[in-house]
């Protein structure tokens, strides 16, 4: 049984999990770094405990400190959310050894999926299709180069070099011709050693024009392993998803069944427990290949919740408590789309932005869900990931969901910090998004020289008039003073002075 859940995370996913605990009648413990002490998630827990330390390593990644807090406040389960410690097998093991329930799969499953070469081998053995390529079993540079050069003739060009410990594009190299191969191997190995302390690199054929389609799986301790359909997350910028949907526009019942079965086999191969995601590349010819498995809840889990009617976090809590999952037969309905609202400058290579959320007014209305950890008056700081919120819409059909998303994005007002709202809005009008012909490289293809906002001179004139009238009338004034040397909290009412007409 589980009675008190410590949430080892922050921001919107901490809010999501803490609310689920509250609704499930469970006590919860939030942990927070000092610079998060006024963050929304801190308020949603039964007890909130401040972490000692300054850096992320000293706070949200400090395993011992987190275990000590769990012990002190009687937490009998730990939910790691995503990111941070969520895919750290050593932490999962330490949690279990401390006699605390780990809300996630076994440490062994995390390890087997965390090492990409081991995952490839495991999947091949389980009969799950993997991308044509070869594992390279050498750590020594010379031997590795030799083996990869030989393998490259079998794999063909263009090809991808991938770090076995990799993730998020690090230690990855695209190789177009044999001339570049040796230098690319050396570069990928160097990067992998620097990022992961593990220089092992392997080789895969590059499948261009493919879709990123992932299958949500759920496995309980009573022997049931099911899939919950797919999410399509092809629309990515800098290897990061920004627009996710379910169902995938090109999915068929037959293909879903095949991919779902492959995902279930993948989960069974590592004795998976809890919620997980098996990522595939889906080619234009309808072939699919295992990419990797994320052994945690995912950022984009709400789209699956909206179309399947299953509360994935509640199921995680149930499964961790040893109960059978509550899901019946898979029943997908309608269409859900999620966009990720980032504090970033989409017109300047998506560089992160910071500033005050002087105005933060999310859209409202039926079929709109906002998962966020911020509110008006908060400051966006460079301390953490710049994702501010996930805006999710559901509607009976894909066309209606896109219409609703357009309306929601138009109504979403964020001022004081640069965001990608307008970028997302224009994305919803692009013909490839409208037709569902999305693939993983589409953003680079559509905007090879970067995106910049399109607007009419009428709307600019109106905006200039608004600025002129606002200035004349002395409307709201926000003085953004933001200094990490301030001892005080980042108080919206210390830093914002407002005047009304």
């Amino acid at each position: 049984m589980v009675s008190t859940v410590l949430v080892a995370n922050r921001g919107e996913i901490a809010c999501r999990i803490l609310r689920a605990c509250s609704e499930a009648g469970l006590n919860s413990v939030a942990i927070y770094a000092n610079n998060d002490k006024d963050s929304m998630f801190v308020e949603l827990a039964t007890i909130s405990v401040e972490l000692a330390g300054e850096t992320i390593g000293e706070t949200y990644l400090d395993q011992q400190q987190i275990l000590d807090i769990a012990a002190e406040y009687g937490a009998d389960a730990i939910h790691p959310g995503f990111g941070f410690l969520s895919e750290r097998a050593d932490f999962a093991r330490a949690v279990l050894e401390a006699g605390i329930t780990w809300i996630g799969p076994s440490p062994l499953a995390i390890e087997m999926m965390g090492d990409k070469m081991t995952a490839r081998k495991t999947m091949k053995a389980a009969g799950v299709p993997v991308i044509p390529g070869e594992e390279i079993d050498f750590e020594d540079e010379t031997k590795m180069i030799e083996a990869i050069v030989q393998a490259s003739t079998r794999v063909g060009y263009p090809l991808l070099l991938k770090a076995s410990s990799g993730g998020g594009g690090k230690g990855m190299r695209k190789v177009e011709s044999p001339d570049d191969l040796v230098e690319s191997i050396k570069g990928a190995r160097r990067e992998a050693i620097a990022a992961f302390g593990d220089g092992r690199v392997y080789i895969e054929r590059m499948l261009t024009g493919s879709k990123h389609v992932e299958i949500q799986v759920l496995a309980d301790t009573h022997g049931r392993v099911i899939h919950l359909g797919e999410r399509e997350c092809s629309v990515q910028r800098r290897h990061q998803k920004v627009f996710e949907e379910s169902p995938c526009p090109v999915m068929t019942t037959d293909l879903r069944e095949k991919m779902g079965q492959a995902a279930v086999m993948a989960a069974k191969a590592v004795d998976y427990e809890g919620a997980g995601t098996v990522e595939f590349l889906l080619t234009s010819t309808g072939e699919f290949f295992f990419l990797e498995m994320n052994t945690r809840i995912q950022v984009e889990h709400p789209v699956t919740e909206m179309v399947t009617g299953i509360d994935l976090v509640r199921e995680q809590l149930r499964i961790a408590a040893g109960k059978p999952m509550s899901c019946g037969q898979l029943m997908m309905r309608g269409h859900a789309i999620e966009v990720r609202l980032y504090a970033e400058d989409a017109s300047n290579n998506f560089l992160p932005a910071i500033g005050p959320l002087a105005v933060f007014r999310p859209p409202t209305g039926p079929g709109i869900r906002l998962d966020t950890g911020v509110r008006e008056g908060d400051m966006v700081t460079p301390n953490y990931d710049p994702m501010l919120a996930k805006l999710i819409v559901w509607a009976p059909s894909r066309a209606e969901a896109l219409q609703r998303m357009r309306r929601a994005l138009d109504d979403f007002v964020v001022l004081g910090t640069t965001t990608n709202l307008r970028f997302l809005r224009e994305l919803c009008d692009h013909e490839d998004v409208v037709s569902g012909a999305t693939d993983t490289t589409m953003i680079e293809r559509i905007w090879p020289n970067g995106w910049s906002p399109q607007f009419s001179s009428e709307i600019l004139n109106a905006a200039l008039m608004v600025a002129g009238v606002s200035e004349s009338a002395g409307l709201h004034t926000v003085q953004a003073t933001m200094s990490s040397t301030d001892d005080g909290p980042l108080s919206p009412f210390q830093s914002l002075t407002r005047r009304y007409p």
Partner: protein
Amino acid sequence: MQHEFKFAGDTVEVTVARDSQTWHLGDLECQIMADGRLKLTVNGVTKFAHSTKVGDVWWVHIDGHVFCIEKTEAGSNDDDSQGGMVAPMPGKIIDVLVEQGQSVTAGDLLLVMEAMKMEHRIVANMDGVIGMLKLTPGDQVQQGDVLVEISE
């Protein structure tokens, strides 16, 4: 009332006239609502705009678009390449090598900031004397923030 703004690098003069509760600019009409939003009439259609000022910049939301419109003083020389050096991206000040009142030569290293895991060196873009300088190591700065001003 006449104001000078800067938008996308261009200087723009905006003159709005007030007639009771309604402001005018050409065919455009605008009223300030009780909650501080602005109600615009554009070609007979009503739109609602939000505005807020952060530092010198008016942030304006209208019809799903956001515009950052900088208020500048009419007649003043506000060319960024002359007087002030601005942060190229959000980041953290690592080192401050000059102090207020100090004379510097174009090319002198003034500040070091860290952004996106990289160090950026901020050098003097002209000869002159360091004006206002409030930053200390550890401070966070936002893209476009004036880091240091130099006067001739």
